[in-house]
């Protein structure tokens, strides 16, 4: 049986806006290292492929594209790349995949940050590039303005489509720059040749000379090629433009089907996107996102979610399907949806750390019992967990 890949998406106190009010939550610790190392240890205990860490240059909001003034939900976050770096020495096998934006960040800084995470984790780094068209987020940088229509309802208007095309075009350029910078040092560029006094073989360092409408980057990187060669690039995508973005630059795509037939449709769209962009080499690994509440006692998870909905004053909504049930029921669902052509799942715990613990301590043993999940890590690198080889360097002369 083909094994599933499993990952967990970490964000604040969990994915329910009232999660921090759950008795199991640790709301006073969200900005401490100990909170995050505890979560990472829990995920690693469950032998998960990777954890993602959410991020944004704007405070959380109950409105997708606009700020709000609510004080009854978690507000505030730490930089995700630095959280991942803090977790690297505290873990040994699990992949660490922080979010870092492509709209306001410098691609050069992202490239050296993720490469440095790959060094600190000995080959377990990934990156989730993310666009933002939020006007209030752009005002934190004061360098560009957006028309204030960054919300799903507006994405299908002509202006919305133009904005999405611009943001994802820039994101594709950013990923291209980052990947070129990771390759800009060949693996054997450092020679330490005492006879000639040369530390470097400069012929094995490469200018990347990227020129695009938003930025041009000369290179090479200041950081040598990271241990994995190319750290894992992963992208969340909900529509054709982001599917094509993922197909063009990512290794893993997170999608949001709401049923097995929906998963069949989305997988077909992703494969079509791969053909559209002319993807070669390894196909995209497709993970479905699910927002999960897990309790072993039947009905308990749904009741817990309902209590949180009451506290928040509204039923939870999400781009991803919401699951509340037992670990056995979730295992059934995952194995059913897998047959739609999914490689794995990214589970968004409704409440942290309790729903993450339920994943690693209850869901994982069920899947293992069905022969659908690893019983030990078999690789030391994140690419290795996903069965991806260390790629050849695009700049290296063919042997």
């Amino acid at each position, binding site marked *: 049986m083909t094994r599933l890949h499993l990952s967990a998406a970490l964000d604040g106190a969990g994915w329910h806006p009232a999660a921090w009010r759950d008795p199991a939550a640790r709301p*006073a610790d969200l900005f401490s290292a100990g909170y995050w190392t505890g979560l990472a240890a829990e995920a690693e205990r469950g032998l998960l492929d990777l954890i993602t860490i959410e991020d944004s240059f704007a405070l959380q909001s109950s409105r997708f594209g606009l700020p709000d003034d609510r004080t009854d939900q978690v507000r*505030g976050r*730490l*930089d995700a790349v630095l959280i991942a770096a803090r977790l690297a020495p505290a873990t040994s096998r699990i992949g660490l995949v922080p979010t870092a934006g492509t709209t*306001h960040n410098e691609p050069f800084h992202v490239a050296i*940050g993720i490469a440095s995470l790959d060094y600190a984790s000995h080959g377990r780094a990934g990156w989730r590039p993310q666009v933002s068209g939020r006007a209030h987020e752009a*005002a*934190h940088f004061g360098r560009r303005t957006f028309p204030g229509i960054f919300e799903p309802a507006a994405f299908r208007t002509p202006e919305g489509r133009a904005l999405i095309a611009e943001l994802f075009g820039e994101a594709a350029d950013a990923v291209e720059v980052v990947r070129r910078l990771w390759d800009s040092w060949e693996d054997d560029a450092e020679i330490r040749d005492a006879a*000639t006094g040369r530390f470097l073989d400069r012929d094995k360092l490469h200018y990347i000379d990227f020129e695009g409408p938003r930025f041009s980057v000369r290179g090479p990187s200041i950081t040598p090629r990271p241990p994995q060669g190319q750290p894992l690039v992963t992208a969340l995508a909900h529509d054709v433009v982001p599917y094509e973005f993922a197909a063009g630059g990512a290794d893993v795509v997170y999608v949001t089907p709401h049923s097995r037939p929906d998963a069949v449709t989305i997988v077909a769209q992703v494969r079509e996107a791969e053909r559209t962009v002319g993807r070669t080499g390894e196909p995209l690994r497709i993970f479905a996102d699910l927002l999960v509440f897990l309790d072993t006692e039947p009905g308990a998870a749904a009741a817990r979610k309902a209590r949180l909905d009451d506290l928040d004053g509204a039923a939870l909504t999400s781009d991803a399907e919401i699951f509340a049930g037992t670990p056995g029921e979730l295992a059934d669902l995952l194995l059913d949806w897998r047959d739609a052509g999914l490689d794995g799942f990214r589970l968004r715990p409704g409440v942290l750390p309790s729903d993450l613990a339920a994943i690693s301590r209850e869901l994982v043993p069920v899947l293992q019992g069905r022969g659908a999940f690893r019983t030990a890590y078999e690789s030391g690198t994140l690419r290795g967990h996903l069965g991806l080889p260390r790629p050849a360097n695009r700049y290296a002369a063919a042997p």
Partner: protein
Amino acid sequence: MPVTSAPVKQIHLAAHFPGVNNTTVWSDPRSASQIDFGSFVHLAETAERGRFDFFFLAEGLRLREMKGRIHDLDVAGRPESLTVLSALAAVTTRLGLAATVNSTFNEPFDVARRLATLDHLSGGRAAWNVVTSYDAFTGENFRRGGFLDEADRYTRAAEFLRTARELWDSWADGDVLADAAAGEFVRPGAGTFAHRGEHFDIAGRFTTPRGPQGHPVIIQAGDSHEGREFAAADADVIFSRHGTLEDGRAFYKDVKSRLAKYGRGPDELKILPAVTYVLGDTEEEAAERAHEIRRAQVSPQNAIAYLEGYWGRDLSAYDPDGPLPDVEPDLSEGVSKGRAQFRGDRGEVVRRWRALAAERGLSIRELVIEATGRQTFVGTPRTVADRIDEFVQTDAADGFVFVPHLTPGGLDDLVDRVVPLLQEKGVFRADYTGPTLRDHLGLGAPRPASARAREEASS
């Protein structure tokens, strides 16, 4: 403990990761990787074992070039500073963690949140060495490119830092309530900010709650009048290059005298020159080692490359063990890019070197060894400890940033053999007394950005 009439000054020590320059000797068999995380762990653990104040990482956002090609003679290749420091926060518990971050090729919102994040994740140990750059060469790696006039460097840096402080102040201590019973996670309006200035016009809500130190420790390394003034106004540590006793005292006096007009006391800015050291069991052995290290630092190829930086022309045909080039320097433009440039009169320097080489019969390589940085402290552990203490007690410094010549073991013998002597003298801590870097440096709570603005307006 000796009985003293006046309290002795306490010394502050920092460890500079050797990294990327020709101080670092890569040809030594003990020289390990400059990029493997294990090397950073080794030096950070050594520094913490020695009870150092902080660990320091430099930055350079473009590989250096000579004559239009990547400079291949020196160690190159380093990580992103804040990322590796955040990882080091996991393997240390008290050591301060200082990142050099350029104010030209970054934005205040991002830098402020990353430093606040490091401060949270390290339990209050973050520091920021604020550097500025204006060169279009480095700018070719960034969106903004080389857009800054040299004259705007410090105005932008000063406004950048002021803006960052406003962002750190936008959350008060206690704004995170996390009160589940009351259903209040955060105080209303936490993080609200608006900055309208010449270089930055930004507003909104900052994402990161106030860190344990309030503001990270601010380090500044400029030596010009503007740099000194910037440090006097707004830095906690000045990282200088005045490694001799006489220069050090003059610099120290000058910088400390600038503090009063900003309403600051002399202890609020620590002066820590960057220094090197070489130990031996005898003075002679130390001197011999020092000479060997100098020869390793200045390889024949490096000697030629160094002269080319001043001559402004290709000198590869000259014998490094022969006399100085007889051609005249080309003073029109430099051949070296991506490192701090010599900005004085190159022609005058060349004339001085020719005189020195003629007088002492020096070859090119010998001249470069003579003309470039000598080790600051050379001797037995006892004489080096005494000399360090003398610098500090006679107000040439408040302590030092040690730059080892080997990665990663280059501070092992300093920590094992010199630090205990300083501790015996009662001039260096036997253990950390507080959890934060501000504690180590004896700095109080940071003044709010608003108070600084009022003082600047009234001064």
